[in-house]
């Protein structure tokens, strides 16, 4: 919790992006989280990513549930639309918003408790429906806001701050997302912005359900010796399979790579995700291979990070439901609510 307002002053060389904003314009209110919380780093990465993407802030809707992680939507994109839902219900509220207006960019922010414990069903259904969104899980293995109880992603055998051992099996959100058909699946670490920022940019430009499971240490309740989600533990066990460069549709591609070292994956909006493979045997476009690779590595105690799976030709819920393109809020009352006569007609047709 910080009581000093962040000064308005910025570095004199601070640049504006194509839509005329500086990075500072994408900030929100000053964070009330504990000093050193990984979640704050993720907020900084979101700010940087949106600035780099030249997104107009009013084109973003940020939705979250409950938890320290879910509070962060207040700490970035102060000029965007926002909605804090009840605990674990962000995916369904976001789905509704998305169906009503597909022109906004949807950013779902959640925690491991919010998405893997109370909201697991919601998470799973959003993935399987292919709701177009960037779904960021700020995963610290505990319920930070309620003082550090193990969450459903806590590893078996991990210790809490008082030394109690977690005997339950962990839920792997990445595994579930892969299994249920998410078309952009990544894992990252709050302490590695070089990796995280391009992943967020890729997710926000993706045409379907994109999920990033970001390991984000809770300094207050889960950053001790027996934790498997501490800064030290993740730094020691992090195994990046790839580095991605996000290349926007208009930018020129200049860097050359040896054949086989990179895979360029064009996305629906013309942006390109360039994957620099760090593990030669890893293929991020093969869902089954990705899943078994992950399992094998996890068994060796490695936390695999990077863009794990990508279907560049993703479709989304709007395609499968064949909904109209026009946002509902631009249609006018007459069209949205044609009256009882129209309703009678429909009812008659169903008799």
């Amino acid at each position, binding site marked *: 919790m910080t009581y000093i307002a*962040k000064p308005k002053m910025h570095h004199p060389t601070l640049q504006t992006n194509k839509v005329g904003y500086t990075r500072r314009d994408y900030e929100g209110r000053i964070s009330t989280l504990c000093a*050193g919380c990984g979640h704050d780093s993720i907020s900084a990465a979101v700010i940087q990513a949106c600035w780099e993407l030249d997104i107009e802030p009013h084109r973003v809707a940020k939705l979250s549930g409950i938890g320290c992680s879910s509070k962060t939507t207040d700490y970035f994109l102060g000029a965007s639309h926002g909605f804090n839902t009840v605990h674990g219900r962000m995916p369904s509220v976001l789905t509704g918003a998305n169906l009503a207006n597909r022109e906004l960019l949807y950013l779902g922010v959640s925690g491991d408790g919010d998405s893997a414990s109370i909201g697991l069903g919601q998470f799973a259904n959003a993935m399987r429906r292919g709701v177009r969104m960037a779904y960021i899980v700020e995963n610290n293995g505990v319920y930070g806001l309620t003082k550090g109880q193990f969450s459903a992603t806590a590893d078996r055998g991990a210790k809490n701050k008082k030394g109690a051992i977690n005997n339950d099996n962990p839920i792997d959100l990445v595994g579930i997302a892969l299994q249920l058909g998410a078309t952009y699946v990544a894992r990252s670490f709050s*302490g590695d912005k070089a990796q995280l920022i391009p992943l967020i940019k890729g997710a926000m430009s993706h045409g379907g359900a994109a999920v990033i499971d970001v390991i984000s240490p809770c300094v207050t309740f889960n950053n001790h010796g027996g934790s498997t989600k501490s*800064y030290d533990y993740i*730094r020691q066990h992090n195994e990046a399979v790839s580095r991605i460069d996000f290349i926007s549709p208009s930018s020129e591609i200049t860097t050359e790579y040896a054949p086989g070292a990179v895979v360029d994956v064009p996305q629906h909006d013309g942006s390109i995700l360039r994957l620099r493979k760090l593990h030669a045997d890893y293929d991020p476009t093969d869902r089954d291979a990705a899943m078994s690779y992950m399992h094998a590595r996890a068994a060796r105690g490695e936390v695999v990070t990077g863009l794990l799976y990508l279907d560049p030709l993703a479709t989304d819920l709007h395609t499968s439901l064949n909904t109209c393109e026009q946002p509902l809020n631009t249609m006018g009352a007459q069209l949205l609510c044609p009256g009882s006569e129209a309703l009678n007609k429909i009812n008659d047709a169903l008799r």
Partner: protein
Amino acid sequence: MEPTNTANPAYFHKVVDCQWACPAHTPVPEYIRLIGQGRYSDAYMINWVSNVFPGVLGRTCDRPCEPACRRGRVEENNAEKPEPVAICRLKRVAADMKDDVKARMPSISPNNGKRIVCVGAGPASLTVARDLAPLGYEVTVFDGEAKAGGFIRSQIPRFRLPESVVDEETGYILDLGVKFKSGQRVDSMRALLEQGYDAVFVGSGAPRGRDLDVPGRKEAAANIHIGIDWLASVSFGHITSVKERVIVLGGGNTAMDCCRSARRMGGKEVKVIVRSGFEEMKASPWEKEDAQHEGIPILNFHVPKTFEHDNGKLTGMTFEIVRAVYDAKGKRTLVPTGEPDVLVPCDEVLVAVGQENAFPWIERDCGIEFDKWGLPVLGEGTFQSTLHNVFFGGDAAYGPKNIITAVAHGHEAAVSIDRLLTGEDVSRRPVPMTNLMSQKMGIHEWIYRNAVSNDVRFKVPWTKAETALANIKIEVELGFDAATAFKEASRCLNCDVQTVFNRATCIECDACVDICPMDCITFTGNGDESELRTRLKAPSTNPTQDLYVSDELKTGRVMVKDEDMCLHCGLCAERCPTGAWDMQKFLLNTTQAGARCRDAHFPVAHDSAAEAV
């Protein structure tokens, strides 16, 4: 890069840009905070200890601190017109609003049997007297003039510096038991040396104004005056009026004082005419502005050719028109443009084209060597001449400078004299006294006020032009009122409250990097300084400001902080979960004459650090 050695007092000192730039190293932010708290007397005394003439300097200082002030840099692209903190005018607030400070003046130790003599009663000599008299030295000061102050009294016009301020601040020093021999010029160094003083300090200034020898100078002499002589005559009331059309030759501060004085003494058409371009003029920007503000035009690129006269009665001057040409090395020459010469009619001319040192009273065979420019040969930093017990300072040492430089010389010369007379090596210099104190009071409470003000520099109110021009004794600038002083003081960034990094407790969580409003902090691999500067979060645009580099961290990276744009807002420390960042107030006071400047107080291992300061 090697990890930064913050134990070297020079490192944190340099971060306090204003204090570093100040010749006397006055702890600026320390007194600005006190002004913000309304503790004017305390603020005054901090100044008094360091720069001896706060009331005088608060009106007239050349203020090298202001161009150095960090506020001017951080307002770049953040404010319409980036400006430093009005440091100088805040000093004046302390002087104007303080209570009676007589009781705070130093007590005087019993006579130690040693006798010091100072030649001249300008700021340099008076500083020596102030530093040495309380230690028990018997200090005698000679001056040819009736009152103490040197050029402060005789040159600086009253509309910039009321005489009462000079009286008050010279008075504090003379009241310390100093023997002031007024109206007594020293005519012979030899004779002075024969009087058996233990040490002699020469603070006689640079008293000779340069003349301009062009045709007509002799014939029209009655209406041509040397600027500094004329200003002194004005100051002492010997001259009370000028003719209507006045030309002031020269582009320095003396020229500005001449023209503004002339404007107040009957001059209707007063012009400043200068050889160089407007930008290259030596006068401070604010002096030029003030002159122009009073309706005085400045004609540049005019080289004086002749004084025109009618049987000895001055009628005007002719000038050749030139332009500046720069060679490959950037060296300037003034070349005639070929345009016809210009005649500027006038009734009186004031020549303010420079000042020179002159020591006609120092016999050249008494053991004091002079260089080819006629300046004494002095030990660097000691101000000791080739005659071991004779010291020089102020304008007499290295030619005309300014008051604060004279004060700084005075302090160092006093240290030299004290060490000489206590049998210690004059060339060994004392280290400054430093103190580093955490400002943390509670989890989110700091001793200093760390909110950063967004105000732009406040303007000092002025006397109305008609009133100001009507009387040379009416002070033009009025000084801030308490409310404005508070707001201006709040613009100070507290650069002395240092960001201190502790590598051992850093967990590399990035909290400080994310929160820093100025993007000062980067965690990255180490490298050479020049290369490292290319990899910082915000571009490094100012290589004169240091990088603060830590030892290697757990991930193999280092913490690099570019000091350049730091607001000292404390957010990095506030957001650090482990207290690896702390805000610590760095106080540096130069060591003055007295027990603390003696060998017994030298830290044994820190000699090299002292040299770096």
